[in-house]
């Protein structure tokens, strides 16, 4: 007998949508001296607002032509600037949470709840660039 878990949607208010998450795909490791990464701030993610927003594009205009335009992102982690792009996933993913629920017979059965849907990911596939020259000044006193 095959145990078919129930997949339940979140209880949504009318008009509310399932929250959509975005995957950040990095080629590399996030390292920290702390024990866990959870709850820590990684960096700043800048999404390019396309050419329609001159303010933003001018802010980065001098830096990288690849950042201009829709679907581009810059992720600043430490001294690195990662340039990426937003990619739609071929198949959307659902973020599931395993939960227990009391079944009709009284015993608990495992069900999966959909926390979020992932339709897009930001793919940082390019080599990150230092935003600090490695030749920076030694500390002056």
């Amino acid at each position, binding site marked *: 007998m095959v145990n078919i878990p129930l997949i339940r949607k979140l209880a949504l208010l009318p008009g509310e949508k399932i929250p959509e998450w975005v995957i950040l795909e990095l080629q590399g490791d996030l390292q920290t001296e702390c024990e866990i990464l959870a709850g820590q*701030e990684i960096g*700043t993610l800048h999404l390019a607002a396309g050419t329609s927003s001159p303010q933003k594009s001018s802010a980065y205009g001098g830096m990288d032509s690849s950042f201009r335009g829709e679907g581009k992102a810059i992720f600043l982690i*430490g001294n690195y600037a990662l340039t990426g792009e937003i990619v739609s996933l071929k198949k959307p993913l659902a973020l599931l949470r395993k939960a227990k629920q009391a079944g009709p017979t009284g015993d608990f059965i*495992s069900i*999966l709840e959909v926390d979020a849907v992932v339709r897009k990911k930001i793919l940082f596939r390019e080599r990150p660039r230092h935003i600090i*020259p490695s030749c920076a000044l*030694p*500390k002056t006193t």
Partner: protein
Amino acid sequence: MPAVTKEDSPWDDWPDFSDEETNDEPVVARPVKKKNKTGALGLDLFMTNMGISSAAAAPPIPPRISHSTTPVERDPTVGLFSGDIYYPGLEEESLEKMDKSEHSLAPALENGHKKSSVARALFSLRPTAPADIAVPDVPVIPHRTMANPPAIPEVFHQQLSEAFEPESLPRAQPPQRPSGYRREASPARPLPPTPVTSRLRVWRVASKTLPQIPVLSGGTNFFLRLKPANWRKELVNEFASTTAVTITSHQSSRQFANLLLATRQQMEIDAELPVDSVTGPVESLQVEFKNMWVEKYRPERYMDLLSDEGVNRCLLHWLKLWDAVVFKKEAAFLNPYKDYGKRKKRDDKPVYDRRKYGGVSDFCFTVDADKRPRFKAALLCGPPGLGKTSLAQVIARHAGYEPMEINASDDRALEVFRSRVEATVMNGSVVNQFVEGGERPDRPKCLIIDEIDGAPGNTVEYLVCLLKGEAKATEGKKKKKIGLWRPIICICNDLYVPALRTLRQCTMILRFPSINRERLTGRLSDICKHLAVQADSAVLYTLCEKSDDDIRTCLNSLQFASVPGKRLHMQDVAKATMGCKDQRKQLLQIWEDIFRLPSGYKGSDTRTGPLHTKSGLSPSDRIGTILEMVQLGEMEKIVNGLFENYLLIHHKDPSLRTAHECADWRSYTDIMERCVYEDQNWFLLGYLSFYPVAIHLLLAALATPRFTFPTAQYETYKKTIANQEIIKALLKDLAPALLRTSKSENLPSEVIPFLTHIIQPPLKAVTTHLLSNAERLDLKRVVHLMISYGLSYQEEKTLTGIHTEKMEPQLDAIASWHGVNTYPGMPTTVRAMVSKEVQQQRINVNARMEGTKSGGHDGEPANMEVDITQDAPAPALPAGVASKANPSTTTRAQANSNNTAKLQVWSVYDCYRKNSPATAPKAGGSSKARKIWFRYKEGYSNAVCRDIKVKDLL
């Protein structure tokens, strides 16, 4: 008892005059005709002594006003002046002032009439009406005679000439100039009308030879007409039989005038003379002068033409090419110069002589597929009065066409023009049959478009379309293309009018050279012989010379000056205002004349000085000539040309006195220009003309002057505009804190020259690793400044393919001064390095601002802080990081303050301040904890992709 006769006054409603009838004809001053081709004599007509008046062209009979004392008793030889007085600006107030003024009019006028009414009677005449007024008792001071030059401006004039007299050398007295430039201080201001006799005071502009525009004390102009001495007698005799009225009042004088008018009209009708014929004693001669000589002696045949033979021949050839289409027969020649051109004996090829064919290339004489000439239209261009229109008509007739003339500046509307052109040019034999009033209705037409340079642009466009065969017919449902089957001859004065640009490309252009002076003189003498006017050929030659060989002007002047049976004297012709060409001199010609002594100048006599010549070219004559020439021209350009060239003129001037005086005059003119154009003190305008005069007297030499066209002003203007654009661009990107103190006025002088130096320190063209500490500081300073001022370098490729880094906005262009050694700037490689730094720093600043704006990282904005002084990139963490993993609040505050300090905008002055952000030691610059960093995995990904089933997760 004065007899005041008045009739048809514009002030008919005045209480002094009882109005039995009102004037049907509205009294409107006629506008000056734009171009009076047949009688372009201008002011001369006002001074006619032959009875030919300008009003001859005006059809309606103008009201005649006779204002005279009992004329029979007066001695006509006294030389009284009569005058047409035009006084448009006479206001009621000023008339009342006249009434109140204590000055009395002549006692004869004081019999119960208000003075103002007399004045009105005087001034209500129109300028175009040939009104005859004798005003013996009314205080008119007429034109001063030449021997008695008038008051103040003449003083100026005299002093000017005296200033260059050798007796007064070294110049004792500078030419009198208005001390202040206010109206009150000006010497040009006429005196207030104190005595009676000065009420109509006339004063002249300085030159003796200029057209005189007399000015009344009120500031208005009036015109006087000289009459022969015995005209009054004639006039009186004319009416003596009809009336014996003693005129005592305005009313009766008005009636008398009506009577006179009626009588005269009746007489004219009886005599079957044209109504507008001229009054006066020369009516018997009127028949003789009914036609203008210009019309009378217009060339009839090809051989009569005075114009250049090459042009004539060329036009005729071109017209003959149309024979194949128009007359359906081949032209007598296939090659236009076959019969005329010289042949080389050897190869029997016609030698093309450009001079013979008016400089037209033989391409013009080829025909197209329809056997029409290559160019469907000919364009004659040349100065007025050379006989262009006559040539076109004569040649058209000669070639068997009926010339049909359109004046493009008259028929300006496109529709009118189009209908006329189409009616003429289209291949319609029907049209040709029913020409009204044509000489030979059966002849094909040749369209002559006169003054095409005055035509509006769309008219010319249409014509171009027609010539190119693209024009569409307006009528009919099917818009057929109009074929051009008749020749078109266009005539213009100025070939380089913008509207004609397109037309020039599709027409055969014939430039009219000037006319052979000997031939013109010969023709004039023939005409004189024919009319029994005795004139020396020397006189006629002078006339030609004066008019620049303008046939029309010559003939008009000749007709104007000559009396049948009498001798024409040199002084008649030598009158300055007569016989001058109705065209302004070219600028180059004007400059040359100013820098050159007149042609008759015989050289200087050491005893009397260079200004005394035997041939009557006295300084005052020369002043007059230059003034006259200059006042017609574009003063600004003339002055500019003189100013740019006066030092180039070769002149012996060891002590630089002349140069000094020239510069002095220029500054004086400049002040005058300012007064005229900024304060609108137009009465000073006349003084501008004296700068060229002074230059002429100071610098004129016998040699042909070499000068250049003045371009400096325009170039400066262009440069100013460009520089202003740069400053505008700079201001646009300037940080607000700097904008507060920077203005477009002080930026170029106070900031930019230093800024361009400061941001280009002598850096080595190496990577930033290898820079010394001092150099790194410099670099940092540069980067900060460039960001603050919104500067950047932009990569550009020159034409030769070399990459350059150009400063944007281009401050180098502003800061480079002519003649000053300019700083060459950094080499391109260094610029590229700085550019990179600037870009990165800019990103950081922006990122920081983004972060603070979003508010998400309030606590630790320094987290993302990236500073140029930071030692190492993230992977190699600074040593202190580990110990400061949990930064204290004070450290954080430090970091924050440091952060805000870095956000400060720098100005030029800040960067060398002692506590400038750049040089200030970084307190907590590197103490920021970096919790997370990123390690990039280069190369391939070793992630394994595997399908996961749901059941695996459970």
